[in-house]
């Protein structure tokens, strides 16, 4: 059953090629000096064509066949008016427009070979003497009702007029392009006969207007670039699809791990709880909160450190805020004594850090909050201190 995507199974179609009547073209073999670059050879060929043609180049459809290193090139040209507007319209969308014989020029043939191309209304003979570029191309038109004997006689006459043919290849049918497998060449085939025409050779052999060809090549390059971008985007979509599959797999893996986490949680909670309680009990045994001992350090055993104007109103010690930290709120009628007292406490070896900022002053009364941090070893003195009245 045909589907909209049947072309995918069918593969790429053959490239569209317009093969023109050989009889419309005149051909010449021109010599090319050795060592010319392709650009120089092109200039040389176009100069030669201008010299041999009765028409200016702008009135010709022309192309040529030359291989680097060859001592000659084969020119072929046709007067533009030999082609009707309808005929030219059929070239639209063609990858290449060639005279029929030019499709066979890429064949690998022995020296002194003549290739016979049979058309319903003509016979063409392409003769290679030495090298890959033919030395001569001849075409003889035939009447539509020509007999086999007349066709055979014309063929023999063509071979004789070319002279020196050691090998003759007869193509029974027309050469047709193979499905496009690469951008680098077009392969023409007729039975066992194969002709490979590379991109540069096709560019030279294409008979269309050269400026038009340049514009087509430019748009072709743009289209290929668009294709490459499209392929890149499509590839990213494919990568995303793989990524989605990876995510699905990842989530399954994650679920397994979460189940493992949940299964282990009660055991781990129990171990954690034992650890925390053990630590807490160890701390209760070894690290006691000693608020009155800390306060004794602040006042001195006989209150010798605390100025008499300073009165403590609140003392607080909290294990969660520091085992060796005491917070004291106090007031005094002599605010200057706060700084004096703070300076005195800074000199006490047992105290690591002390701060006593004034929090409020009302009339002659100043309130302050004293925070003192003690050195742990200072509070672990063996003898029990005498606690003074705050």
């Amino acid at each position, binding site marked *: 059953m045909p589907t909209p995507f049947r072309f995918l199974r069918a593969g790429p179609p053959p490239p569209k090629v317009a093969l023109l009547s050989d009889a419309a073209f005149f051909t010449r073999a021109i010599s090319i000096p050795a060592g010319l670059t392709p650009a120089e050879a092109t200039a040389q060929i176009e100069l030669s064509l201008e010299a041999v043609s009765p028409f200016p180049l702008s009135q010709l459809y022309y192309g040529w066949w030359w291989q680097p290193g060859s001592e000659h090139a084969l020119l072929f040209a046709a007067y533009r008016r030999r082609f009707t507007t309808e005929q030219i319209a059929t070239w639209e969308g063609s990858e290449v427009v060639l005279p029929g014989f030019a499709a066979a020029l890429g064949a690998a043939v022995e020296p002194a070979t003549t290739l016979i191309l049979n058309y319903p209304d003509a016979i063409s003979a392409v003769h290679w003497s030495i090298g890959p570029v033919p030395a001569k191309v001849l075409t003889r038109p035939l009447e539509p009702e020509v007999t086999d004997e007349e066709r055979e006689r014309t063929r023999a006459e063509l071979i004789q007029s070319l002279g020196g043919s050691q090998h003759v290849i007869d193509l029974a049918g027309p050469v047709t392009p193979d499905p496009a497998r690469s951008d680098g060449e077009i392969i023409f085939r007729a039975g066992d006969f194969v002709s490979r025409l590379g991109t540069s050779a096709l560019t030279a052999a294409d008979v269309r207007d050269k400026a038009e060809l340049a514009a087509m090549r430019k748009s072709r390059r743009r289209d290929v670039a668009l294709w490459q971008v499209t392929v890149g985007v499509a590839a990213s979509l494919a990568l995303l699809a793989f990524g989605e599959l990876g995510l699905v797999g990842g989530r399954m893996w994650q679920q397994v791990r979460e189940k493992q986490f949940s299964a282990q949680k009660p055991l781990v909670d129990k171990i954690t709880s*034992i650890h925390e309680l053990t630590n807490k009990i160890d701390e209760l045994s070894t690290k006691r909160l000693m608020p009155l001992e800390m306060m004794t350090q602040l006042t001195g055993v006989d209150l010798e450190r605390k100025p008499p104007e300073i009165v403590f109103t609140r003392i607080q010690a909290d294990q969660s805020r520091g085992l060796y930290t005491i917070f004291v709120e106090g007031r005094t009628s002599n605010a200057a004594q706060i700084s004096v007292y703070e300076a005195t406490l800074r000199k006490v070896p047992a105290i690591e850090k002390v701060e006593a900022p004034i929090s409020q002053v009302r009339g002659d009364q100043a309130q302050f909050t004293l925070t003192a941090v003690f050195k742990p070893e200072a509070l672990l003195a063996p003898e029990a201190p005498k606690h003074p009245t705050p």
Partner: protein
Amino acid sequence: MIRAVRHFFLTRALREKLLLLAFLAIGALWWFSAFNQRAISFWRAQRITTARLAEQTQWIKNRTRIEQAAQKTAERLDPARTLNGNQLVTTVAQLATDAGLRDSRSGTPSTEKSGQFAVHSAEYIINNAEWEQLKSFYEALQKRSPYISVERFALSAAMNAPSKLTLNVKVVSVEIVP
């Protein structure tokens, strides 16, 4: 197949090529944006799970050591002297009474329990206390360490009567559950 698709693409009109490319690009961007969010979310979740599992593994690996440490800690305590929640409250109340503190009240004890240990804590408020009484109470409490410990200690004096003190103390007891 790719050659056939390529030929199909290249033989379309320019506007069709551009439209096709634009649709594909928009789709890819849209998908990538959604995928990116889900991927980041998954990546974060798996990293968190990895970290949690690694932490669990460490705890399980150290289980024997932790249980041995708990056993050693338990061995240092005399089970007969450990106190449950009710005993904590009554013992502290008794110590306060012994120190001459009458105006006192306790809160409801709370308990943390795991394995063979239980830790009970209770708030205790003593009002209108004299300094010497409080000092005596404090020293009595400290003598019961580590079976009873002070976790929070807040002592304040009344503004109008500085010799009358209020003590807010949080005490903790350890119990070894048989």
